[in-house]
């Protein structure tokens, strides 16, 4: 056989793990399909909302960004799959043979997937905001990015995709089983919100879906429904970061402790 002499000082680092994760993420066609559909879905819903808007009352920015709540499931599921498909296909053994430091592997995965999900989320938020505004009927003045709170709502809406995606990645690393992790994600993000609203209204502001819909993507902070006052945009962002961090921390612990 040909011997390639490779002499490299030092040892593998985070950057090497991140390069590997980037090659893995970009070399699956499903990644690009999912991200394209995420953007298209947000834009489609925004156009539908725009066309059906009858007056300029209320938070138009929030209405136009309604598609984000639906699209979160796509980046969330992609996050789950980024973790679980390694276990179901056996790739995890190749991955850990190359980078045996398991928390480092998950950190690299989170950084690379998080960056891709953030870029996609911002694209989805801006494209849907602009497309929805164009679809507003003549005579209804659309919100402009320069108005107070509008740019913040769009940017934080895009970040919501990334954070729910990272939450999915953490769930996937903890349970390693695609259907179960997707179930947890859908349950945690959507179903709990539907059940929680009538049963325990006090928890509503803290649920991921309502943080995205009622905290991150609003022009006017402090939206309230009845007695329930939602978190401010930045507090909402902090809560989602915390959820994702806890899920990823648990994922790193499980990955390090369990046999692969």
């Amino acid at each position, binding site marked *: *056989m*040909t*011997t*390639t*002499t*490779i002499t*490299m000082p*030092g*040892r*593998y680092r985070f950057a*090497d*793990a991140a*390069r*590997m994760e*980037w*090659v*893995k993420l970009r*070399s*699956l*066609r*499903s990644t690009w399909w999912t991200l394209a559909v995420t953007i298209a879905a947000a834009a489609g819903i925004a156009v539908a909302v725009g066309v059906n808007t009858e007056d300029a009352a209320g938070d138009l920015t929030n209405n136009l960004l309604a598609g984000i709540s639906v699209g979160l499931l796509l980046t969330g599921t992609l996050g789950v799959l980024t973790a679980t*498909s*390694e276990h179901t*296909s*056996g*790739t995890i*053994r*190749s*991955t*850990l*043979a*190359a*980078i*045996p*430091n398991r928390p480092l592997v998950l950190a690299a995965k989170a950084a690379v997937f998080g960056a891709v999900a953030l870029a996609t989320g911002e694209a989805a938020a801006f494209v849907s905001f602009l497309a929805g505004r164009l679809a507003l009927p003549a005579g209804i003045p659309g919100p402009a990015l320069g108005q107070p709170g509008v740019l913040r709502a769009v940017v934080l809406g895009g970040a919501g995709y990334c954070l729910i995606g990272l939450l999915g990645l953490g769930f996937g690393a903890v349970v390693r089983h695609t259907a179960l992790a997707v179930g947890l994600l859908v349950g945690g993000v959507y179903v709990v919100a539907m059940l929680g609203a009538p049963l325990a209204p006090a928890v509503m502001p803290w649920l991921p879906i309502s943080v995205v819909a009622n905290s991150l993507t609003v022009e006017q902070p402090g939206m309230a429904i009845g007695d329930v006052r939602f978190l401010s945009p930045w507090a909402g962002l902090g809560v989602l970061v915390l959820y994702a961090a806890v899920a990823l921390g648990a994922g790193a612990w499980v990955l390090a402790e369990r*046999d*692969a």
Partner: protein
Amino acid sequence: MIEVRDLSKRYGATVAVDGLSFDVLPGAVTGFLGPNGAGKSTTMRMLLGLDAPDAGQALIGGRCYRELAWPLREVGALLEARAFHPGRSARAHLEALAAASAIPRSRVSEVLGLVGLDGVAGRRAGGLSLGMGQRLGIAAALLGDPGVLLLDEPVNGLDPEGIRWMRALLRSLAAEGRVVLVSSHLIGEMALTAERLVVIARGRLLAETSVAELSAGAASLEEAFLELTADDVEFRGLPADNPERRVR
């Protein structure tokens, strides 16, 4: 060299590896033999740091796998045919591993050529046959030009030409002074490929010997192996003349 010292592993109530110790030296192909369920794959997973031992040590060049600076450039492993994602191409799979190990991309093309996969490197790996998947696993093991190779059932699914190729490859890798540990349950194949043998059963060492030594007192290596493991076979079919065996 590989040093396994008092290694033990249990999964729930099942003892997979039980106080196992042996060495594997460079320069010769060492066959790792044992009946089904003997603990060969578990031992290999512990050598690679994938499973944590309950007791004992599995060392490569005096260190455990997790301490290696650039693992793929020190140890190449084939664990099972499918350690890759079906939706990713063979080339992308190898490129990911190369990226993790600061191995130049040109080396990916080199190993693809070496195992004869250049023609299908861009296709989804899920469409590869068992034998081609095995070749991809070999390519991954050779990627970092490592001094230690751990191959679990490498000839699984290979055609006769592929088996002959693998035999020559293993021998040439050992002749270059590498450590080559090959597990197999195909005794005839091991008789042709290996010089040294480590035989285990029920997670324990039965023999650490050479092919010549083990087969010396018997009609063939297979006979010698069956005699050696006779008391330790856990999964046994009924003999051909047993009336229970007839399908009704």
